[in-house]
């Protein structure tokens, strides 16, 4: 089943200070070999840039900052894993519970019949 993901890249300098106004490029890959551009976004005041991507399988993601005259380039990767769906099996109902329910039903029927005779 397809799921839409939010990719959040956070860019800081080496001291952890957020860097705003920087362009981040986002890529996806299914094999970590061929990367396809999802799109680019600009970091906000918190140093964060976002894109969304819809996938139906395990997907690898990469964000890249190309660097500029003031700051070095950097990149980061992440992975979204889709687990294989397990068959939906109803939990087993204990035999004693089935018997109990049957006994109760029989009891109710018996009481109803007795009252009808009275």
């Amino acid at each position, binding site marked *: 089943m397809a*799921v*839409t*993901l*939010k*990719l*959040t*890249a*956070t*860019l*800081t*300098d*080496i*001291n*952890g200070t957020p*860097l705003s106004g920087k362009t*981040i490029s986002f890529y996806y890959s299914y094999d970590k070999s061929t990367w396809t551009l999802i799109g680019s976004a600009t970091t906000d005041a918190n140093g964060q840039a976002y894109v*969304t991507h819809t996938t139906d399988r395990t997907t690898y*993601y*990469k*964000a*890249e*900052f190309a*660097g*500029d*005259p*003031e*700051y*070095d*380039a*950097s*990149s*980061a*990767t*992440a*992975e*979204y894993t889709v687990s294989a769906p397990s068959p939906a099996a109803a939990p087993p109902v204990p035999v004693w519970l089935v018997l109990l329910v049957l006994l109760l039903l029989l009891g109710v029927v018996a009481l109803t019949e007795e009252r009808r005779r009275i």
Partner: protein
Amino acid sequence: MALKDVIGAALATINWADTGHSTFKVYHGAVLGKYGVTTFESEINYHNGLGTKDGYKLAALFRTLADLRGLSSSTLDSYTAITLQNTPFLGATHVPDNDTYNNKSYFCTYRYGQCYMYSVAKKLGVATDKWNSNLAWQEIKSVLDIAGHGVLFLNTSDNTYVDLGNRLYDENAQSISVMIELYEADKANNAGALAYARDTLWAYVNNNLWFTDHYGYNPGDSGYECEGPFFAIVAARLRALNGYTLANWDRVITDVKSRFLNNGWDSPQWTYGTTRYYAVVHHHTANSQRRLMNTIGAWTVLHAFYRVLDPTSQAAIQNLLNGPAGPAWQLLINNSGLFDSTANRFRWTSDGTTNDDATAAGCVLLFLLGIVPQDGSLLVPLHEFNYECRGGSTLNRYFLFNYDARTIRIPVKAGTIQFIYGTSPVSYTFPANGVYEITFSSDWNSITSVSKVGDVDPTLTYVDPVRTPTKLTLTVTPL
């Protein structure tokens, strides 16, 4: 014996009370914390007093080195004014008469710090009619145009020159260096000097001196020759001044890797034939002489280029400095022939004798060999005021090695750097780019204090622009 012990023993052999009026000793002594501004003042005054063109030439070089070391004073300026006013020029032109060949006066493109004097004359407002960089570069260009390439000796008063082999560095790179220094003297008016260096001289080098994976000695000799590191400095400076872009820059990187790194200590610049020397060899196949100044140049370049090289080449530099073969400093003192381990002294060349000048320079080389870059490295500003950076290596005011205080000063690109002066390596992670002073414990096996003493000046020339490191994180969440 640890590296710090070798440095200490070598330093103890030098007679610091006598400068020998040597730019080599005074400059390296300044890097080693032995000399300050008053020594440079005395030396300029002394050389002015000789009243000769060689005296004024050395006075100019002392002034250049004082500025490189960040030393200044009014006395320095007043003595320099005398140098500027009395330096002889070639005829009525604006180019110094700084050398003699076959009894004729020439301007030697080795420069001896004199091209920097155009900037000083402008700053001091002294003899600016003579030290006119705008006319100088055009007068020099007229002679180079006749030659069709860089030259060693040129005379601007009669447009003659002497070509001693059209070599990669001595003629061509040095002529490029002249042009880019004259550009730096007056960037607003001398853009033509930079363009000439880039479009004519650099183009000539790439059309005539490139051999598959390295630059050769001259157009007819593909050999690896010992000026390779200084050539790389000139090329990097040209690129930096050209806005950090330059045609065939990839070749310069390839040359550095082929020359020094691709085969570790078996790379051609460290070997004569198949013999490893762990120091720069004069010519890989034609001359086994080892050279100290060129080895300093090599390690200056490798430290400077480290941050722009690929991970494999970075690992190669780490392996040279402190790898399986042993630390570079130990291999140097045991195998290069440049160090007399009985006298604890260096010699300039493997076939020469030991002396104070070389020993001071050797200690500066050992200082560089104690620094092993990791994800942090040195931010080396690249300077080249003189042939082979003679009389002073390229290390500016950001570098200091004070043995007695167990303190070093280095310019750093943020990240981790390892130091191997003691018996055990010690690492430190520098949080930001800058100039740092690091103090070591008595055995130099640990660091007792680190302080940032300033920022690196981004307007100096580097192998790549000085940028702040960044960190990027990525999270993925379902919407």
